[in-house]
């Protein structure tokens, strides 16, 4: 692997940047691997990287049916945070945020982590109680949380309508200063390049069509490029987890739903914090290119279509204009959709499955991007040790039957809670 540095950049400049090598190989699929990871998004590539780096398992293949990072890794709104209430979630996402903070150095690839702060607006006294309670829980778990008054928010975010006449009056907000954004594509590329350098085979346009199980034990996978023998298979295909698990006759507590996101035309810097509102369920940040990146609710019907319908776009834009009337002159430039694994308690599943040698990281609802490094780390640990890491002990598949759900929202068994 050619190391990226200021010197390699200067060297490249002298040759017109014409001689940069490929960032990762394009290997042919082998007949046998020590472990196979299904899914070449951030989670799958991170899993392979940590298998090679932390556990010395380098004979690993990542199989991707499309192209790297072409699923939800390239479709999210790039927000990272760890402002969770429940202990299991808080510890897991805080570990993830700590990995984000040094990921560029770890991978020798600039993932553009920007700790610009994630602010959850408070609009009602009930919101206020919930934000205070969550903020205190975060601080008890050693996570940064800060309550901002209405005046502090008005000074920090001048375009936000904090007037008493606002449609959704702002009473204050819970800020996580270390939260922010990361360049999503760079996460896939960085993990791919670093994993490849350690010997991981990344094979694109290779769809898994079956999982071979003999007497309850995984023996390999069938793909469009031929069969592979392996004793360990990790599934990292959130959005399609139900379909891949079904190849091993496993039924999951998951529904697939479409979530849309959208960007405005690019403008000069106008918003330097990630602003979210639970009351209208809306979030917005400004990308480095200047676009306002926005999202809101699911479309609220089962879907594998990777595109949604107009009513939800109208809903998101209406929420945006209620909070930021100044954005009313901007034009929407692009909208898209991604498929979410919506679990029955809103928390992920990172676990051994009931087939020996089969593991999964999925069920991310729509909070999977920020989990990418930790998901890969503990998924790799679970695959290597055949038992969960302490940070994913609670994220089992069995928790639903055992009554140990991690229901952050307190909504009950309901797969389309957001």
């Amino acid at each position, binding site marked *: 692997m050619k190391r990226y540095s200021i010197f390699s950049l200067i060297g490249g400049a002298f040759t017109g940047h014409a001689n940069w090598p490929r960032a990762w190989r394009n290997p042919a699929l082998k007949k046998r691997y020590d472990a196979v990871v299904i899914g070449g998004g951030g989670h799958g590539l991170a899993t392979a990287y940590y298998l090679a780096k932390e556990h010395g398992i380098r004979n690993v293949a990542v199989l991707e049916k499309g192209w790297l990072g072409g699923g939800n890794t390239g479709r999210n709104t790039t927000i990272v945070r760890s402002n969770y209430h429940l202990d299991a979630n808080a510890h897991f996402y805080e570990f993830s945020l700590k990995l984000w903070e040094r990921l560029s150095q770890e991978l020798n690839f600039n993932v553009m982590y920007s700790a610009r702060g994630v602010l959850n607006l408070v609009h009602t006294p009930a919101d206020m109680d919930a934000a205070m309670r969550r903020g205190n829980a975060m601080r008890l778990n050693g996570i940064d949380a800060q309550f901002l008054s209405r005046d502090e928010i008005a000074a920090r975010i001048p375009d936000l309508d904090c007037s008493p006449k606002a449609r959704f009056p702002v009473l204050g907000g819970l800020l996580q200063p270390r939260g922010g954004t990361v360049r999503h594509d760079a996460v896939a590329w960085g993990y791919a390049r670093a994993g490849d350098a350690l010997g991981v085979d990344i094979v694109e346009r290779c769809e898994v069509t079956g999982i071979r199980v003999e007497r309850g034990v995984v023996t390999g996978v069938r793909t469009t490029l031929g069969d592979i023998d392996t004793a360990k298979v990790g599934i990292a295909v959130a959005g399609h987890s139900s379909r891949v698990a079904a190849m091993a006759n496993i039924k999951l507590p998951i*529904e*697939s739903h479409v979530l849309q996101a959208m960007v405005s035309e690019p403008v000069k810097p106008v918003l330097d914090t990630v602003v979210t509102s639970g009351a209208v369920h809306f979030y917005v940040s400004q990308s480095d290119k200047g676009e306002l990146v926005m999202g809101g609710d699911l479309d*609220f*019907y089962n879907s*594998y*279509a990777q595109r949604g*319908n107009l009513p939800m776009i109208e809903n998101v834009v209406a929420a945006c204009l209620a909070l930021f009337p100044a954005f009313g002159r901007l034009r929407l430039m692009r909208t898209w959709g991604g498929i979410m694994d919506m679990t029955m308690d809103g928390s992920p599943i990172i676990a051994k499955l009931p087939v020996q040698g089969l593991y999964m990281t999925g069920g991310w609802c729509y909070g999977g991007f920020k989990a990418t490094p930790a998901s890969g780390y503990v998924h790799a640990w679970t695959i290597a040790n055949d038992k969960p890491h302490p940070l994913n002990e609670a994220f089992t598949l069995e928790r639903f*039957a055992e009554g140990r759900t991690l229901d952050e929202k307190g909504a009950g068994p309901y797969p389309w809670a957001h």
Partner: protein
Amino acid sequence: MMLIPCPWCGERNQIEFTYGGDATLRRPAPTAPQSVWVDYVYLRDNPCGPHDELWYHGAGCRSWFKVRRDTRTHDILASAPIDRPLRGEGS
């Protein structure tokens, strides 16, 4: 935008409706074993293709009814009142 065919009111804009999820679930008897209840409460087929589902026409006739919709394309294949079978449905 989806036009959803309410069996009573005809095709209407999707914003008049609320989604109710998988229509094939059947509530088990109270005495059924726990595994059957876990299956009913938590597990879903989550098909990629035709999906039988419940919708509620809240801004119209306020009736629950069944729709068969393709989850890959959002095309609606059939609809039926809540107590009638969808085209090709067994029971």
